[in-house]
């Protein structure tokens, strides 16, 4: 049979998949075994392996003629080490199931530790294009380091209703609920999403570990709590083009019918066949978007399908800096940045209630189940929260004036969001709180921030002073309390979202 040049991208994908079978742990494979494992005709596998061998990417065992892993060959299962950056990475960094894809694209080599995982901070030297992709096209963000817990059993709903401040009994199968959970004193432990997969099965995603908490709360109940964090890869596809891309990359899901915070199960690949994937219409950007939950072993197939589908839509992989900018515009709070979990608070005054962290809407005191922290939160309802999470908009002319004193334009444009807390004052007076996240929004052309302030300083329109760094100086700039979110496009929640129609 005449040797035919493999067509298009499919051959490349197949070759790479074959290459990835060779790892330090599983260095040797026979042709028949590889062909079966990858669903290839033996002659196709033979042809592709021949190319890989000729290119020096794999070897051949002299005795058995089996194909062999070559140490250090690029792109094989041994991902190699990348230079350590910023001292934050643990000695043995974990890698998300998408790592081989993300690392191949990470030109900047700017990595960040996220719960022990090595994550891309920004693929390009600056996050700007990635940020704009979120708002104008679509971005693909690896958020696999989230902690994930599967809660299953006859008492699964009972456990979650005991833990969560929201009424989980009202979360129907196929829905996702954003909620808070508190300790016995009503102090916020975390916020996160609860997916209802079936009547007796849920998946909880959270930024921080909470297995022991769920176990303690569920003691004596007929429920099984399992940490599935490492078994599931998560990709966030966010931006106005997300629907079109999601549609093209999966099968079996009616994206037109999928509402905000809906959940659906489908298959990877335009015509399916790439294995199951769960899609939720959720995200952390305040834009139209979806999150894809996939078994770790199918993670790369999902990535490839989304990247392929995104080619015509300006899809870019985006790092955590772009995500942080987007979430700030969306006014979404971040644990450990905008509030401290009661678990981590070294002193009592750092602990906050959900209302004080801007999550009062997740507390349902009217629900019938008794949940942890309820009594304390009922007391708070009667006396009012001491603190409030507000949006701040810093007066641009004032910023310009302060910077002009040292003959510079405000050096805030083009910067990622700052997480260094700075004090917030009553105008010309005492400190009334702190600003925990702020940045210049390229979209809104405003210097915005999230701040925790005393209840009496929380009304929209209230004028406050926020400390800003001007060169080496620390100055106060006038700011105004504004409603969150700063940016809230209709497409985020639109039914049947269509570009150009919902903005």
């Amino acid at each position, binding site marked *: 049979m005449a040797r035919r040049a493999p067509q298009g991208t499919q051959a490349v994908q197949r070759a790479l998949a074959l290459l990835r079978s060779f790892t330090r742990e599983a260095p040797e494979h026979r042709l028949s075994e590889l062909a079966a494992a990858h669903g290839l005709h033996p002659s196709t596998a033979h042809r592709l392996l021949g190319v890989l061998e000729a290119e020096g990417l794999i070897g051949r065992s002299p005795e058995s003629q089996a194909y062999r892993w070559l140490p250090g060959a690029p792109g094989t299962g041994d991902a190699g080490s990348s230079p350590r950056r910023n001292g934050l990475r643990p000695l043995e960094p974990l890698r998300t199931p998408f790592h081989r894809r993300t690392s191949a694209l990470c030109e900047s080599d700017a990595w960040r530790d996220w719960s022990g995982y090595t994550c891309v901070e920004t693929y390009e030297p600056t996050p700007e294009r990635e940020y704009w992709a979120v708002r104008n096209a679509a971005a693909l963000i690896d958020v696999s380091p989230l902690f994930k817990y599967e809660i299953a059993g006859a008492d699964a709903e009972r456990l979650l209703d*005991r833990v969560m401040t929201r009424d989980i009994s009202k979360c129907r199968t196929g829905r996702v609920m954003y909620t808070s959970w508190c*300790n*016995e004193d009503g102090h916020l432990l975390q916020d996160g999403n609860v997916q209802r997969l079936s009547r007796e099965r849920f998946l909880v995603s959270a930024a921080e570990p909470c297995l022991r*908490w769920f176990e*303690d*709360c569920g*003691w*004596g*109940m007929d429920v099984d709590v399992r940490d599935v964090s490492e078994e599931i890869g998560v990709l966030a596809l966010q931006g106005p083009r997300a629907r079109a891309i999601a549609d093209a990359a999966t099968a079996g899901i009616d994206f037109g019918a999928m509402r905000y915070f809906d959940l659906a199960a489908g298959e990877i690949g335009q015509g399916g066949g790439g294995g199951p994937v769960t899609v939720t219409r959720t995200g952390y950007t305040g834009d139209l978007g979806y999150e894809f939950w996939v078994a770790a072993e199918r993670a790369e197939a999902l990535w490839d399908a989304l990247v392929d589908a995104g080619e015509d839509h300006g899809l870019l992989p985006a790092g955590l800096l772009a995500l942080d900018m987007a979430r700030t515009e969306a006014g979404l709070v971040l644990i450990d940045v905008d509030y401290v979990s009661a678990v981590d608070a070294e002193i009592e005054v750092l602990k906050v209630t959900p209302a004080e962290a801007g999550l009062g809407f997740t507390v349902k005191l009217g629900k019938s189940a008794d949940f*942890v922290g309820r009594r304390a939160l009922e007391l708070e309802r009667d006396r009012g929260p001491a603190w409030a999470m507000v949006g701040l908009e810093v007066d641009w002319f004032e910023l310009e004036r302060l910077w002009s004193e040292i003959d510079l334009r405000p050096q805030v444009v083009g910067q990622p969001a700052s997480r260094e807390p700075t004090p917030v004052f009553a105008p010309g007076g005492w400190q009334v709180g702190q600003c925990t996240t702020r940045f210049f929004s390229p979209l809104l052309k405003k210097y915005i921030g999230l701040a925790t302030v005393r209840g009496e300083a929380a009304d929209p329109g209230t004028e406050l002073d926020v400390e800003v760094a001007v060169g080496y100086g620390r100055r106060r700039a006038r700011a105004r309390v504004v409603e969150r979110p700063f940016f809230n496009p209709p497409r985020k929640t639109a039914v049947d979202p269509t570009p150009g129609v919902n903005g």
Partner: protein
Amino acid sequence: MSDRVVIVGGGHNGLVAAALLARSGRDVVLLEARPELGGLAATRELIPGHRVDAGSHDLGMFRRSVMEELDFGGHGLELIEAPAVAAVPATADSSAVVLWPEVARTVEGLGQVSRRDAAAWPGFVFELAERAAALEPLLSRPLELADMGRLLIAPELLRTLSSPLEESLRERFENPSLLAALCGVALPATGLGPRANGTGWPLLFHCALGGSDRLAPVVRARGGAGALASALAASAAASGAEIRTGAAVSRILVDSGRVAGVRLADGARIEAGAVISTATPSVTFLDLIGAPRLEPRFVRRLLNVKYRGAAARLALSLDGLPAFRGLERPALTGRIVLAEQPDDIERAADAAKYRRLPDRPWIEAALPTALDPSLAPAGRHLLLATVHHLPFNLEGGWDAGGPELLARAAAELERWAPGIGGLVREHAVLLPTDYEAEYGATAGALHHGEMNPSQSLWLRPTAAAWAGEPLPVAGLWLGGAGCHPGGGLTGLPGMIAAVSLLRG
């Protein structure tokens, strides 16, 4: 709200609480799941014609004032004090040692094995009594903050209770049998080897509650420990308490954070304004109230309680008095400690740590018929061999482990009393799993929670509070061995519960 007080459990602590509360005019209903009263101090006919004590049978620590208050004498309780405190028989490699209540008598005996130890004994007894006397007030009532000061100004007491017992003893003594005898007084049912930190505590505990005038005396009730329960029940009934056996409580009912009563296994409901539970903290809260009704941090605290210290009881009916080497009959009336040296106990504890049976089980034996022949038919003797320091979660399980333990215990007894095997006519066994299944002793722990400093005094639940916080259910009181001051036949947890309840 009902004025009735329901007491869950008819062990000696529950009965003490019932008797005291009934005497104070309260409407008391005591509910015991088993057919007989006494709990872990019950006497049962485990061998036909024999009165076998299922658990504790030493009343040496029982509060005398309670006995008088409740008129035990008038209700048929007769106490017999054993002439001996503890004895270690001789083996091929070691000499016998007997501890007597009388200092001079002990010194005389010790002189045969170690002149140094004999000389050190009076000073030791004096200091121990002094430290025990300083501790005693803390054990007989709910603790107050000021009590913490009493401990802090007694550095020697603190040092003794927190140190490894063997180390403290070696500061004075050298004879291995003597060291073993003292360890044998302190360590039963603790699960702790003498090299473990905090093992000074149980010795001080025994001495403090045994009375400052003598060293941890052994006192038995005529007719078996069950006679104590009978006297208590008679006293309680005379004061109007209702006592029901065969009434298993399945639920303590809670209504808006307050006890409302109990539900029985047969579905009956008994209203009550107050409930005293003598079950372990684990059973009381996790089973009878239910973890989902409790704050998670309280559940975590419950799950963190250590219930080590499982034991098995082997009762043997013998044709005659066994020949423990080097011991005369009076020496056999007290505790018979079968350890040549402290390390024998340590090795048993080591095996338990790794969920294994020890090669040589550590046995604390007693011959109750040496004091009270009425416990067995004429011509028979009853030997109670308690095998301490067993792992409740034995590797391979107790179904297979039970017979193996029996074989090893028999071999060990034979080593100490050659020929004993030939005397055995009948036997009965209670394994750690039996203690949990039959008596609700969580993980077979006879003390309802390990007795070490980290689970004692302020760190053990008390009648109405735990770790400085009130118990999470109003109207619920704890009155069993799992709460302050701890296990043993003291009557104190029950008394403290009754007193706390009466004080409101």
